[in-house]
């Protein structure tokens, strides 16, 4: 029992152990220098990430409260990877921060919550994982402690999430009332297309939609992204979103199969709205974080197109896209994070003439944005292609046409940033940035990932084989 427990919950236990190590470090008498602390934490995170790739377990624990398999492990590895990258990128910001261990405790708690959420086979565990991954995150949003915007963001985050989890809970309660079970397997057996279940399904989708910021449940996103520290923003937009998407894929594809028709139509509508609204708002944004917030909303719209496929291609393309999205979005956030930490500049105007002073960073940002826009040969192209490809497999080409045209709109705003950086003149450009080597490594990994993941088909084929 114990060995099985240690083996199956390896990933979660690793995180928990790190959390406790940090807790003891904090409580320990001697204050550690922030730099040393960060180096230490990053080493831990690297170990954590590396451990995920060995001895991939499959099995259930706690009477089916927890299950794991190769796919879940892969997904957790993605999240671990994202967290590590974010951690590396926030080096310049965190080294001046007073509460480094707390930051990581909260961050890793949310990660733990996501792991449980991914591994959940039960609505209760799912809900707890969701809350565990949300509430500390709201606190994290406030981690620029002296910034009004940071507090505002945190407030908006906690209120919106509480509201959405209230609705989600109401939905779950109705689902429980109509099926009598919280367990996913039994739920599948009990589900039929009656209107109360559809109603609770809508509430559930709203809850999910809140987390992945799908329109119209997205309104908190931009404000929270803008106000939060960059590290948290990138975590929100990549890791948190990715985790819930993993859950959505497994829940929708495995649990809600009896109501597949209904959720297909809902996701279809939401996806269209998300793409369009996200793009329309992104067009006008000046703040880079806010801009990326809307762009990530639009990206979710595309992901939902893949989700509508209801096929192996659909689920694998979603998971594959999240991997690419981690690379691309973190590449972009990496640059913004470094620039923000060192100069405090965050608006698009500040980025004018960026190429003159920081060519390398500009290329990192440009490549990331191009990847987000879906330009070959970058990974984003493959990601988007497969999403829409999967969506087209369902035969609903109107969705594909809308998505394809939305890609054009999205290209416009990505190119706006590119234009600002490469073409516009600026009398007062961002000075030459000298960042620590850790953010550089992180950005390098992201760019490498963007360049390789698409061309080399291994990642997708592996995911596809896991889902078959």
């Amino acid at each position, binding site marked *: 029992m114990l060995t099985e427990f240690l083996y199956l919950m390896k990933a979660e236990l690793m995180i928990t152990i790190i959390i406790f190590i940090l807790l003891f470090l904090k409580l320990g008498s001697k204050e550690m220098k922030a730099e040393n602390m960060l180096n230490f934490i990053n080493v831990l995170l690297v170990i954590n990430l590396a451990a995920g790739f060995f001895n991939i377990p499959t099995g259930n624990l706690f009477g089916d409260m927890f299950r794991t398999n190769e796919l879940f492990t892969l997904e957790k590895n993605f999240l671990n990877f994202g967290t590590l990258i974010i951690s590396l990128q926030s080096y310049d910001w965190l080294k001046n921060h007073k509460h480094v261990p707390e930051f990581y405790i909260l961050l890793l708690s949310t990660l733990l919550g996501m792991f449980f959420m991914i591994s959940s086979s039960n609505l209760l565990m799912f809900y707890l994982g969701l809350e565990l991954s949300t509430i500390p995150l709201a606190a994290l949003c406030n981690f620029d402690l002296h910034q009004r915007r940071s507090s505002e963001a945190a407030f908006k985050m906690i209120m919106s999430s509480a509201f959405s989890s209230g609705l989600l809970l109401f939905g779950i309660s109705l689902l429980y009332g109509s099926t009598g079970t919280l367990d996913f397997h039994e739920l599948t057996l009990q589900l039929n297309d009656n209107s109360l279940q559809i109603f609770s399904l809508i509430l559930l989708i709203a809850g999910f939609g809140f987390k992945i910021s799908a329109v119209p449940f997205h309104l908190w996103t931009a404000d929270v992204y803008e106000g939060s520290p960059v590290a948290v923003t990138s975590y929100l937009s990549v890791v948190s979103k990715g985790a819930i998407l993993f859950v959505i894929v497994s829940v929708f594809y495995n649990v809600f199969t009896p109501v597949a028709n209904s959720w297909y139509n809902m996701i279809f509508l939401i996806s269209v709205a998300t793409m369009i609204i996200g793009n329309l708002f992104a067009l006008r944004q000046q703040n880079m974080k806010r801009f990326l917030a809307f762009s990530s909303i639009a990206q979710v719209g595309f992901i939902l197109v893949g989700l509508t496929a209801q096929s192996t291609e659909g689920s694998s393309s979603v998971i594959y896209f999240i991997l690419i999205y981690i690379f691309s979005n973190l590449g972009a956030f990496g640059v913004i994070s470094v620039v923000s930490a060192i100069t405090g500049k965050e608006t698009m105007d500040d980025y004018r003439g960026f190429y003159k002073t920081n060519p390398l960073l500009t290329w990192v940002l440009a490549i990331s944005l191009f990847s987000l826009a879906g330009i070959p040969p970058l990974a984003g192209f493959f990601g988007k292609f497969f999403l829409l490809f999967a969506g087209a497999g369902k035969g609903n080409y109107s969705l594909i046409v809308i998505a394809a045209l939305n890609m054009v709109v999205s290209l*416009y705003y990505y190119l706006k940033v590119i234009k600002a950086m490469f073409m516009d003149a600026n009398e007062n450009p961002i000075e030459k940035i000298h960042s620590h080597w850790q953010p550089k490594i992180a950005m390098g990994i992201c760019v490498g990932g963007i360049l390789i993941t698409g061309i080399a088909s291994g990642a997708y*084929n592996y995911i596809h084989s896991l889902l078959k």
Partner: protein
Amino acid sequence: MNLSLLIILPLLTALAILPLKASKQVRVVSLVGASMQFILVFILLYFYWNERSSGNTSVMLFENNYPWYAPLHINYHVGVDGISVAMILLTAFVVLAGVLVSWNVEKLSKEFFFLLLLLSLGAYGFFISLDLFTLFFFLEVAVIPKFLLIGIWGSGRKEYSAMKLALMLMTGSALVFVGLLGLYFNTNDGNGQHTFDILQIAQMNIPVSIQKIFFPFAFVGFGIFGALFPFHTWVPDGHSSAPTAASMFLAGISMKLGGYGCLRVATFLMPEAAHQYSWIIIVLASIAILYGAFATMMQTDLKYINAYSSVSHCGFVLLGIGMLTKTAITGAVMQMVSHGLMTALFFASIGMIYDRTHTRQVAQLGGLLKIMPFISTVFVIAGLCSLGLPGFSGFVAEVTVFMGSWQHADNFYRIATIIACASIVVTAVYILRAVGKAIMGPLPLTAEGSPPHLWRGGEVDARWNEKWAAALLIVGIVMIGVAPFWLNDLVTPGTETMMKNIGKVVMLK
């Protein structure tokens, strides 16, 4: 002959210039790379002839087929037929000339050449692709370098133009994308499996109702690249704002991606729909030809003149494709090659003129023949090719299109052909106006009564690199113009393959 070399070589060159510091090294390496491409393409041509003359009649030669995304039936499948070889040849010419012309780019030269090489990679990849996915992949690869080239190194309203170009081309590729997906999901290899493979799809019978839905997507999508009326408006702005080499690439190669795509994907794979919609294509192409020509007549900027004339000339490509006869399609391919070379030459000479006079306004120029005879001669030659003078490639291509179009006995087709023919007069008008004003005539004098200062002193006429670039393109133009039979022989087997598919529906003599 491994076709992938065509992709690998530009890639390696591009990577090789990345670590370089001095712009001189960058140039030299790029030039070496471009020359190697050039030689490689001729080796390819040689091998191609060899294979064909030794009786190899398979549709595509030098095929390579590796699974790429196996679960999605996406393969890296390359191969060439005569049409592709012709387009590849064109690319090699334009790339080498483009690199030569850009020899004096000082601003961010490393990035400049990197992007140029990336563009050439995209073009080669596109032309050798036999898999719709790779085709699409390379089609889009070529978009962003254009944006950057125009936006960073361009002139005039460069940001606006760059953005417009990028967005319109992406709209085109978005439509293409939908078309490709629609095509894919309606293929069936007998085991219920779909495929992206062009050659396989060509063997299948896609239901006509499906074709009718997705043909417009594919055709209009590629048509936007190929300046299909009314989606051509990126052409004037894009071309006129782009730096010289980028203009050459845009008009010389990039617009050909569209034409080639219309042919290889839309028409070849969906012949029934092509047949049904051909009248629309013909109407649009005829409008583009004549209307483009008339619009050109009113332009005052040399680059706009050439850009609009490209709209008109590319109309011939689409007209040829729309006519769906073997000769017309051969003509369309020839027109692509010819227009590519000619317009590249045109832009090169305009670029050289602009370099020295800092204006492209026809009204401000004059008498250039006196101070820069070489450049002026190049300009005139490009102009003459553009107006379809025999001995240059333009004539051969246009005449082939006309012949192919006239093959239809119906009055509708004939009138379209006559409209297209009529453009040769208008073309003559605008070309000769430009030549007459800018190249000939008296030198405009400044207020002091002397020729403008900028025009004198230093090297006014072409430098060695420009001379080589121009000579290269002229050789290409004349090679086709004087001895078109080799191009005809090269392209015809390709068009015959096309016709096997198209001929299923269109029974022509």
